[in-house]
């Protein structure tokens, strides 16, 4: 396949940045999207140009490190995949592809397509845990049976990979889906209930302080989420938040 890539280049955080054209040929449909960028980078290095910076690590859709806004969509046109799992067979010969970083005020660009998502970690510091010491002196794991349905729902929420696609897809750059996934996981489990009120209040406060916007229920985040995290988590978080605020 022959493609025209239009890629965001930005030298550093304070640089203005611009789209730059890169034609590329001999792309195999079996390549992953990032392997296609590897090939481009190899060509750039061989020509003495500077390669394109982008975040990636596991390349199997679980670490959450890769990002990229491809043709206006977080992680590109395929559903339920991260950019590293997107394959070139989803594109056609002759296509023009726009590649940009995830854009949000809370995710400043580091260089080219790599952004700083440390705001996500800071929200977790505020309450994304159960306060139990790792002494090993906890009770037997089977002493509290948990209904399978609850455990499964908690698991589904816990599969969030923290990539930030929800934020990048939201017109308000809201992090509600991300935060609600963690709040829901613990709200659904008996171990998380003890601190549930403080957790939701503290995490929402941290989220607001980081400069993420509000949720307006348009649902773009759910559509673009590579792990299919459900909007019902946001509803659950709102309920938890309301009840915690009232009882406080």
């Amino acid at each position, binding site marked *: 396949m022959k493609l025209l890539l239009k890629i965001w280049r930005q030298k550093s955080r304070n640089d203005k940045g611009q789209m730059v054209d890169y034609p590329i040929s001999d792309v195999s449909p079996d390549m992953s999207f990032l392997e296609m960028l590897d090939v481009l980078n190899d060509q750039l290095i061989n020509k003495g140009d500077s390669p394109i910076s982008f975040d990636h690590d596991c390349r199997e859709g679980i670490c959450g490190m890769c990002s990229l806004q491809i043709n206006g969509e977080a992680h590109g046109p395929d559903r339920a995949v991260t950019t590293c799992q997107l394959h070139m067979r989803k594109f056609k010969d002759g296509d023009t592809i726009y590649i940009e970083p995830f854009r949000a005020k809370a995710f400043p660009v580091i260089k080219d397509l790599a952004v700083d998502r440390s705001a996500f970690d800071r929200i977790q510091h*505020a309450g994304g845990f159960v306060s139990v010491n790792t002494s090993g002196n906890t009770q037997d794991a089977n002493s509290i049976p948990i209904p399978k349905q609850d455990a499964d729902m908690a698991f589904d929420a816990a599969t969030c990979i923290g990539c930030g696609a929800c934020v990048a897809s939201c017109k308000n750059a809201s992090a509600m889906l991300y935060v609600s996934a963690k709040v829901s996981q613990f709200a659904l489990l008996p171990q998380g209930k003890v601190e549930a009120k403080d957790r939701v209040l503290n995490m929402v406060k941290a989220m607001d302080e980081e400069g993420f916007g509000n949720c307006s229920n348009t649902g773009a985040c759910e559509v673009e989420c590579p792990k299919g995290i459900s909007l019902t988590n946001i509803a659950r978080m709102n309920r938890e938040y309301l009840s915690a605020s009232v009882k406080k």
Partner: protein
Amino acid sequence: MAILDSKVPSGPLKDKWTDYKNKINLVNPANKRLIDVIVVGTGLAGGSAAATLAELGYNVKAFCFQDSPRRAHSIAAQGGINAAKNYQGDGDSIYRLFYDTVKGGDYRSREENVYRLAEVSANIIDQCVAQGVPFARDYGGLLDNRSFGGVLVSRTFYAKGQTGQQLLLGAYSALNRQIGRGKVKMYTRHEMMDVVKVDGKARGIIARNLVTGELEKHSAHAVVLGTGGYGNVFFLSTNAMGSNVSAAWKAHKKGAFFANPCYTQIHPTCIPVSGDHQSKLTLMSESLRNDGRIWVPKNMEDVKAIREGKKKPTQLSEDERDYYLERRYPAFGNLVPRDVASRAAKERCDAGYGVNATGEAVYLDFAAAIERYGKEQATIKHLDVNDNALVKKLGQEVVKNKYGNLFQMYEKIVDENPYETPMMIYPAVHYTMGGLWVDYNLMTNVPGLYAIGEANFSDHGANRLGASALMQGLADGYFVLPYTIGDYLADDIRTGAISTETPEFDEALNSVQAQVEKLINNPGSKSVDFFHRRLGKIMWNQVGMARNAEGLTDAINKISELRKEFYADVRVPGDANEFNEELAKALRVADFLELGELFAKDALAREESCGGHFREEHQTPEGEALRKPEYQYVAAWEYKGEPKDAVLHKEELKYENIEVKERSYK
């Protein structure tokens, strides 16, 4: 010749750890506030260690090269975690887990470390449940188990195909709690460049800020490396792109012995290579072998027809299929350990029975499991068990529930639906059992320098059993190191803060600076990957699944030549003082080019076959690994300037609580 003192406590095996903990030196809580510990790596081992040390009261500085500690490659572990809980009542016990692990490791691990691992395994599950890790449960609300290779019980706890993710997020949450309290200072996008030794003790590290390129000096009373394995020396592996050996290798160059580098696990169920552009390989969890049956066609005509696309695998009758694992190993069948399964796949493919265009793939087939589960569900729901379409649908739902994310991952990569047609798989480099030599305290031979998780060598011998990596990472980080490190730090309560303004720190920083400048200013013409791929090819072809003296000798020479070529002709674009992934990669590959040579040297010196190390000269008439009693030792290598000059030290392995016998899965 230095003597390797494993510091294993005396007494009966089952009491060693308990007695030792009772006698170990402790640091009182007020004094812990005066002590700093550096933890490098935030995977299951590093993350859990950093969190626990901070809970205990130490001041912790944690480092990871990713943008968040949650992204460490433990996240990608799929299948599960072993623990001797015996919830299934199928005869499991601490001893049996210990026995399986030592046997699975082909009698090349340290008995006492393995027993301790089995002993604390049950605590891990309790701990993780208390942290809110959502393990799979049955309809009664209790924890569910599955079975893994090389064992005859169901002791593996899991969270669908994302067990590593859930456990790592558990450790990450414990870490976040401590970061929030200010007890852990977290440095993301930082790479460790060197260990700093003062008066013979590890007292700090040089780290490079990957965003700004700045080199930083960090001091502490002890340094813990939880930096994972070195599978990426093969270029293609199931490791993350950034996984590297540099921290362990730098420690090695500073005096820490590197043990058994040649013990590499080639995992039998990975998605086959599709072309030259391939950047990494993807694992399909071993848990799939619970329900998948592995086969190739019996007849060469069928192989050819399949490769040419004239026949589909589903068109072959049972008689026309060779379920070679079930044929060769009737007792364990498709659940033989990984090394055995990988070699069997290679044997069939070398004989010409590979089922894809490259001839390097076998089938992993779920049709039988789908039918079995479908009938079971139809019976439970009082539906017609003879309705094939219904049975298939019900069975597919069960399989989806168990392995949904893996099937989806396969479909995205290969573009085939594994519910309808068998998966194609082939072995790939996955895990490295070798690593830094450590004693019973998990300390290397450099005082104050610890190695935990995959970065050390001690628990898995020559082959790791499935679902044991997660167990070891968390055991080391939550339950072993936090105790044993106190014994060392108890002597440091009056030391005071370690200064970084010393000649030792400056010297280390200057030598890192020199290496960075050498690479960035190199007038070369080839990219880093060009060299890394070539190293990978040498390793895979000559130091991979089957090794021989001639190939290994040649590999040592080739790698040494390649290293020279790398320094003469690598081109690293950009500057040292910016976000520069090529520079980070070049620094890592430079270390792989040294490790690779030591790896081959170790494989050459080990004149036997055991576990993942298979020497063609040493096999039984049936083609199984032929172990030799005179090689019942740990090979710990001391750095002497060039990899080829490394000096061998031996730690003899004794088995007093287990009978060393032929490792049979027939």
